[in-house]
């Protein structure tokens, strides 16, 4: 059993993010969102509402999609994290990123990293989702620009391209 005090002492916390080991010093209840942005410089993780409503801070933690604004950093110790920065390989965009570009799935861009990670999580479990399944999988992600139609189309297009249909 471990005991720590939230303030003023910081704890050492290590996790893997986009395949790289990261060690940070943070208060136990600091949000994973802030640590990723400020200490690991992964600013593709966006803060929208800060209370789990909008999904723009979505990341994958140990293979599941979570809102990083609701994860106290201590619960991310030893976790395996993927952010939007981890999807492209070298200078090649991920199939979802290319489909969002080609289909106009991004407008102002704030919701886009979360949308793409939610879609990535969906396609990893269900490579050929129906329109309804796409809507359900993105229901925790709000977009105030596109009206969702192009976003759904981007995900469907990425599914078609990756399954060769």
């Amino acid at each position: 059993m471990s005991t720590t005090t939230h303030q003023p002492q910081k704890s050492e916390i290590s996790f893997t993010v986009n395949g790289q080991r990261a060690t940070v010093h943070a208060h136990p209840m600091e949000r994973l969102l802030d640590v990723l942005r400020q200490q690991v410089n992964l600013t593709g993780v966006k803060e929208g509402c800060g209370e789990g409503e909008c999904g723009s801070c979505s990341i994958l933690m140990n293979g599941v999609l979570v809102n990083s604004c609701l994860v106290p950093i201590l619960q991310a110790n030893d976790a395996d994290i993927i952010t939007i920065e981890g999807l492209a390989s070298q200078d090649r965009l991920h199939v979802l990123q290319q489909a969002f570009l080609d289909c106009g799935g991004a407008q102002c861009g704030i919701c886009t990293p979360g949308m793409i990670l939610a879609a990535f999580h969906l396609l990893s479990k269900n490579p050929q989702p129906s329109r309804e399944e796409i809507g359900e999988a993105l229901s925790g992600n709000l977009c105030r620009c596109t009206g969702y139609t192009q976003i759904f189309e981007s995900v469907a297009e990425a599914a078609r391209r990756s399954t060769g249909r």
Partner: protein
Amino acid sequence: MRAFDYVSPTSTRQAANLLSSTWGNTEILAGGTDLLALMKEDVVTPKRLVNIKEIADLRGVKSDSSGLRIGSLTTLAEVAEDAGVREKYPAFAEAVREAASPQIRNMATVGGNLCQRPRCWYFRNGLGLLPKDESGKELVEEGDNRYHAILGNDGPARFVSPSTIVPVLIAYGAKVRLEGPKGKRELPLEKFYVIPKTDRDREHDLLPNEIVTEVVIPAANGWKVAHYEIRQKAAFDWPLAVAAVALKMDGSSVQAARVVLGHVAPTPWPSPQAEAALKGQPANEDSAKKAADAALANAKPLSQNAYKVQLARVAVKRAILKAAGGAA
């Protein structure tokens, strides 16, 4: 947030001993989806946070002679994907799939869902569970009460019980198991919820140093169960009314019924009136409508929520018809 101790026990016994025997000093952290917002807004200000995520015993879905046992740390996503839950308790699986968003379901736990705090905006703004102004005037009664209770609201509590999965669990006859420093106990889930009389009380029967360890759902053999929610948005929204119905049929007539409403009262709201109205009747449009009228006969809307009475009636009627038409 304020300073507090953060402890990570590895057994339920350890955790119970780290919890205070009075409310307000300590809080349990599991999925954190409700607690973090409450702490950020200073609605709760614990001096110690007990992280129970390291207690492996509280995780997972098991099956034994008492029925299906769901560990309190099991996430909503894990429950929704569990083959046994989907096969034997489809109405429960549906209610879980409809709760919150994919991201929240991946973090939120069953125990946390049972113990989540009300969504009442006076409470969430730090004005208390039974909010009053300096002159003692009740804020909900005087103020914006469009989402508040229409049943069991004689006062002083007028919030609605927030869980959307508890009504259908009660319809299935679920029990909740608790553990504290004095040992273990088990309650029918409907007895777990109480209407607080003072601001020092909570909205459930949990002692401040007890932990929800398991939910047990008995075998649903012979029961046809359905869950129905009415909301403003199709996805990721709190319902305006919930109804859960379990029917045991004898040929074409109802031998026994359980009818439980949600989001209408400070507790989940079983309706013996609706159950009596269904007994011995065929399950059809006419009997469903009569049962729905019986369920809402005692409704007393506040100044802005009379519309909820009709919505709750419709939810009950549709849940009865859905149960009658569906499988167990």
